[in-house]
């Protein structure tokens, strides 16, 4: 009786291959290229510290820390569509958690990273709950308030016993337990290990059910809810996870700089993360690495360029140079460095 019943699951056509995976450059397919770049990047990350002086190792560590913080912001803003101008606060909370544990309780640095992450997870989650009622610019304003309040809270008299007030907290530099590594090299590898772990987790998160729900909320919250996504839970948990990433970065930064003070965690730091996010690539995981390198190198580079003029007001000039670089970056790579690379490879693969 019933004609023309389509067969499903049993008689299905073969699943087509993603055409993007079929593209190739110089006879090598793009997924293979991705693997080559990944291995090359890791190789450079492992070998470089043994080839350069300690100060450069320290800078590489800082770039990795920025990358982790930017990745955290990217999970929230890039993938989930929630704006934050307040991530300096979570970076600060992470840094102070570590500093208080190390400075006041003599706890070894490696025991402080996870607590710093957990404290930030909770702080981010709790901040994410009222943030549910705010959208776009209003959320940006609320998080901005968080960023401006944080240094003041850290300076507050009654917390001084823990936070050290305006003086901050001095820390001892962890010693390298490995004979062939300097202290800086050792800390670099600790940060690298944590960063690799966090990047893998973010990648897993984004490509699975959780990531699809996060992006669905960003693209169309009502449809996401209709599909069964609990928007409130996903948004506040994303806030928490984002704060965790940034807090772990803050914790590592306290360890390598061996010092925390309230004015290291101002609104300017939050904007720095945002710059890294946009320049690296919004909603791109490798983009966070480009972003981390950019926000570390370009200010130094700008200063160097400004100093070339030999003027006494070179400090002010360096910000102007920084601004010029920023405009240039956004103009040349409107989709961020990651988007630029993606576009370039697609062009090369198509052969035009």
């Amino acid at each position, binding site marked *: 009786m019933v004609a023309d019943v389509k067969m499903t699951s049993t008689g299905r056509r073969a699943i087509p291959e993603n055409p993007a995976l079929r593209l190739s450059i110089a006879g090598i397919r793009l997924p293979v290229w991705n693997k080559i770049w990944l291995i090359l990047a890791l190789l450079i990350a492992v070998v470089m510290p043994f080839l350069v002086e300690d100060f450069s190792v320290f800078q590489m560590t800082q770039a990795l820390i920025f990358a982790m913080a930017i990745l955290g912001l990217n999970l929230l803003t890039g993938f989930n569509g929630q704006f934050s101008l307040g991530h300096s606060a979570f970076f600060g909370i992470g840094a102070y958690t570590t500093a208080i544990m190390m400075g006041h309780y003599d706890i070894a640095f490696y025991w402080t990273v996870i607590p710093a992450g957990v404290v930030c997870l909770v702080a981010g989650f709790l901040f994410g709950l009222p943030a549910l009622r705010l959208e776009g610019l209003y959320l940006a304003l609320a998080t901005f308030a968080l960023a401006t309040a944080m240094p003041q809270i850290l300076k507050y008299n009654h917390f001084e016993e823990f936070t050290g007030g305006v003086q901050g907290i001095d820390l001892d530099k962890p010693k390298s337990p490995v004979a062939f590594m300097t202290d800086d090299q050792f800390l670099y590898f600790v940060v690298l290990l944590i960063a690799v772990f966090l990047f893998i987790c973010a990648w897993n998160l984004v490509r699975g059910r959780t990531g699809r729900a996060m*992006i*669905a909320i960003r693209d169309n919250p009502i449809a996401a809810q209709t599909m069964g996504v609990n928007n409130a839970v996903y948004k506040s948990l994303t806030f928490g996870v984002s704060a965790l990433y940034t807090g772990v970065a803050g914790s590592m930064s306290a360890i390598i700089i061996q010092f925390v003070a309230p004015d290291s965690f101002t609104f300017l730091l939050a904007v720095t993360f945002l710059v890294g996010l946009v320049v690296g690539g919004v909603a791109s995981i490798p983009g966070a690495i480009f972003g981390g390198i950019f926000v570390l190198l370009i200010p130094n580079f700008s200063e160097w360029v400004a100093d070339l003029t030999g003027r006494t007001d070179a400090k002010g000039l360096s910000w102007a140079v920084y601004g010029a670089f920023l405009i240039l970056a956004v103009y040349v790579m409107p989709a961020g460095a990651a988007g630029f690379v993606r576009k370039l490879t697609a062009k090369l693969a198509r052969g035009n």
Partner: protein
Amino acid sequence: MNRVSANPSAASSSGQPLLQVSDVAVHFGGIIALDGVSFDVKQGSILGLIGPNGAGKTTLFNCLSRLYIPNSGDIRFAGQSILSTAPHKIANTGIGRTFQNLALFATMSVLDNVMVGGHSQSSSDFLSNALRLPWVKTEEDGLADTAWDLIEYLDLMDEAYTPVADLPFGTQKRVELARALASKPKLLLLDEPAGGLNHDEVDGLGSLIKQIRDDRGITVLLVEHHMSLVMAVSDHVVAIDFGRKIGEGTPSEVQQNPEVIRAYLGTSD
């Protein structure tokens, strides 16, 4: 004559209706969008809900998917009131829907859109996803398998990896349908599925809606302007105007209902 029903679906269709809308009223400030609408949707049937623009059809839909809360009345699905069910749990109870003006996840591929449709059918959380625990892979494979079945069912194989924003309108409508089916609904709410489609596409849609009901046993509630489509596929038609039910019956009964004719064509006096 003793008629023994051997077919279980026939037994259930003779019993309780799958969806009961009773006396639902919705006010927006002083505007009455729905004014005590009642009707039943039988298990396994296709019910067409018609009415001129602004009659309250979409408002009723939004009550069914809990985007609005009725000021009074009740909506029962499979015997249970859904008014206290959280909006994100509606998919779980077995109600799927499409949207009048499309509500797709524009940056995501067709495959990912359909897989989000399976969200209510899966349960892995942040931590297990981040660590990609072994059972996450199993769940992902299951979701992908269902998605691919639906992608083939709705003839989207060649577009599966394309971001939906890059697809033509008619194709996007099929993506929405696939996404709604991925939640394995018992009741499918279609909000003006023919809107923006050309003549051939509307014909195809009509047979597709029937096919979905016949192949998958899904009950369909169809809101539509396109009268010939409604009349061709519906088992039962409910007409509303100004938030009130003005007629109900088989397609031919409703077509001859003077109230319905007046609502659509206006009065001569």
